[in-house]
């Protein structure tokens, strides 16, 4: 069993960047000053990710206002709507409003990726909204049925993946909190499978990960097991790992073992114990360890502290196995 580690969502902004962006809004800092600080902070995040031995780097996605904003601002058919609560958190996103069938803007998302990722795209993790979450959380004024919209967004995101693959990016995470918060049924569930079939057709040798978080994944596991992707991730602060069903199909399993809702640091021994149990029950080809969801629910310093769990868990596993995979 191969173990991979990495961030699964945006990293918090540093306190210096918090102050600078506030100052920018108040007219007390220039855009150039803040841009410079963004670049330096992204470099710090990449350095941290490398120091912790992560297999994929993200640079923190510090400039992304929310998961949808780069798309709502650049793709045709959208406007940016009102502030809306992000699931059961004290954070908010601006709800995309879809007025007409959406269309990609070639090159737009590549331009919105953290600049620090472009130097080494092979090790970057590209974060994309999952088609079900995207379709379910926007305000749909396009007249298109939700099932058709999920499928359409899947095709558009597949095109996005194809374009980014051509630039050297090789790992794509589709963030799908809505899949576990409001699991789809019947025709909608089939639309989700079809959307990811489009993604698979575009992926080639790229790694595709569906990452769920924020709610119990158990009710959605039948569907998650059907998604044609490299791995599916679940949030173990919300999902009872002892109840995760067995499977005979060897595929990747993502485990959210760093809880972004508390600053308490998790124990590596607990992670190792869970991995042993799930290794027998799920027989995963690869296990992806990471935060249960976006770690920007905690501030910079505790987020940094918590991430040390991931190399500690991997080292503990390595010690046990004597270096054997």
């Amino acid at each position: 069993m191969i173990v991979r580690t990495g961030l699964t969502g945006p990293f918090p902004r540093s306190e210096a960047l918090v102050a600078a962006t506030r100052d920018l809004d108040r007219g007390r800092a220039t855009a150039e000053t803040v841009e410079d600080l963004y670049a330096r902070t992204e470099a710090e995040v990449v350095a941290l990710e490398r120091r912790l031995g992560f297999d994929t780097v993200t640079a923190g996605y510090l400039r992304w206002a929310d998961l949808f904003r780069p798309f709502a601002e650049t793709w045709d058919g959208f406007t940016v709507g009102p502030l809306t609560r992000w699931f059961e958190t004290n954070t908010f996103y601006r709800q995309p409003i879809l007025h007409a069938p959406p269309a990609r803007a070639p090159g737009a998302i590549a331009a919105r990726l953290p600049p620090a990722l472009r130097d080494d795209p092979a090790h970057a993790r590209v974060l994309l909204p999952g088609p079900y979450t995207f379709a379910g959380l926007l305000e749909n004024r396009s007249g298109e049925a939700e099932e058709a919209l999920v499928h359409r967004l899947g095709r558009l995101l597949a095109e996005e993946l194809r374009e980014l693959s051509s630039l050297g990016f090789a790992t794509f995470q589709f963030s799908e909190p809505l899949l576990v918060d409001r699991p789809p049924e019947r025709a909608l569930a089939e639309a989700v499978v079809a959307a990811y079939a489009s993604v698979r057709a575009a992926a080639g040798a790229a790694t595709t990960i569906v990452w769920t978080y924020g709610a119990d994944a158990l009710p959605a596991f039948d569907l998650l097991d059907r998604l044609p992707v490299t791995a599916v991730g679940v949030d173990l602060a919300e999902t009872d790992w002892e109840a995760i069903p067995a499977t005979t199909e060897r595929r990747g399993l993502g485990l959210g073992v760093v809880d972004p809702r508390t600053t308490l640091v998790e124990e590596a021994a607990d992670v190792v114990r869970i991995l042993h149990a799930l290794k027998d029950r799920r027989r995963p080809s690869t296990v992806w360890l990471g935060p249960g969801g976006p770690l920007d629910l905690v501030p910079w310093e505790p987020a940094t502290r918590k991430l040390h769990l991931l190399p500690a868990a991997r080292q503990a596993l390595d010690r046990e196995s004597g270096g054997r995979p």
Partner: protein
Amino acid sequence: MSAELFPAQEIGSLMKPRWQILGQHGDPLDDRARQEFATANERTRFADDARPAADALLDGRPKDAGADGVRDLGALFALRLFESAGLARVYDGEARRIEMYEYPIRQMRGFQFQGHVRSFDNKYYLKAAVTDEVRLERPYHVEEFDFVRRHARAEPKLPITGPYTLADWSYNEYYLARRSGWKGPAARRAAQREFVVDLAQRAIRPTLAALIDHGCRVIQIDEPAAGTHPDEADLVVEGFNAATDGLDAEFSMHICYSDYRALLPELLEAKRCRQWAWEFANRDRDGRDGYEVLGALREYGDSRQVGLGVVDVHRDEVEPPELVADRIRRAAKYLGDPSRLWVNPDCGLRTRRLDVATRKLESVVRGAALARADFASPRA
């Protein structure tokens, strides 16, 4: 309860006037601040009760007025604004408070601030972790209430952040760490329950008791986080009951921007809650009836008062009194008993300019008068 139908009450904070912000920082007033001060004082004579501080501020000697003196002026300004609008229950517009989380947490031991978390875009809030048992340094809001009680001409009503919200807006380390093994959903919930109850019993209840000792009779417990996790409505109730256990005052619970039906019927177990103060006007638009949810209280046979949000605090358009009256009539119909209704803005008006806030409050009072005329028999 007021003898008149549909008495009006304040519900939360007001925007701080420019002269207060400048004065608190020791900065002299500019022309705009002077004009705002003069206009407000002409209307309510609020400065008459704090003449030395007002004179110092207006004479360009803000340091002589002192930050506390300026805050006194700010509290008087809000009190008189509410009173002049015709409210039956008033407070100081939270003139001395910056926000509703950090201040109470800083009055307690057991917490460590961790840094800033992004709320959205470039907006952030400071968040603490509970790292030890919760202990209260000393009851808070007491001096603030004493000032209001001395100066209020209408009945004072104190708002205070509830235990569930303080817990939800903090990181839970201490209570989570006490549980062995992996901190999965069951462990997290149990730890959160301990945290909420400890906050209620060790910090909020002693504060409420001190306030009641000082003559506070009407207390609004703010639980804006209640709607964030509908499946934890029982924890909201447990915190409320623990915080008010054995205390004698008229308690209300303010919740806003939530799916109230999702919190029922669990919420109804809040034993000493005499009034639900909820937001409704925000959702009463685009063809939707924002007051229909009150029918759920009737279905459950709940007979408590309702503090009815009749103006939206997120829009500048001032609702005409006729619209306010229509909202009250509809609410009375859904509730089945007009005598249980108080009227108020949806939430604190701090998001609106003071001139807009004033006109909205006046519209609340005038709308209540219009609705009152429709109901023939005044309460006994």
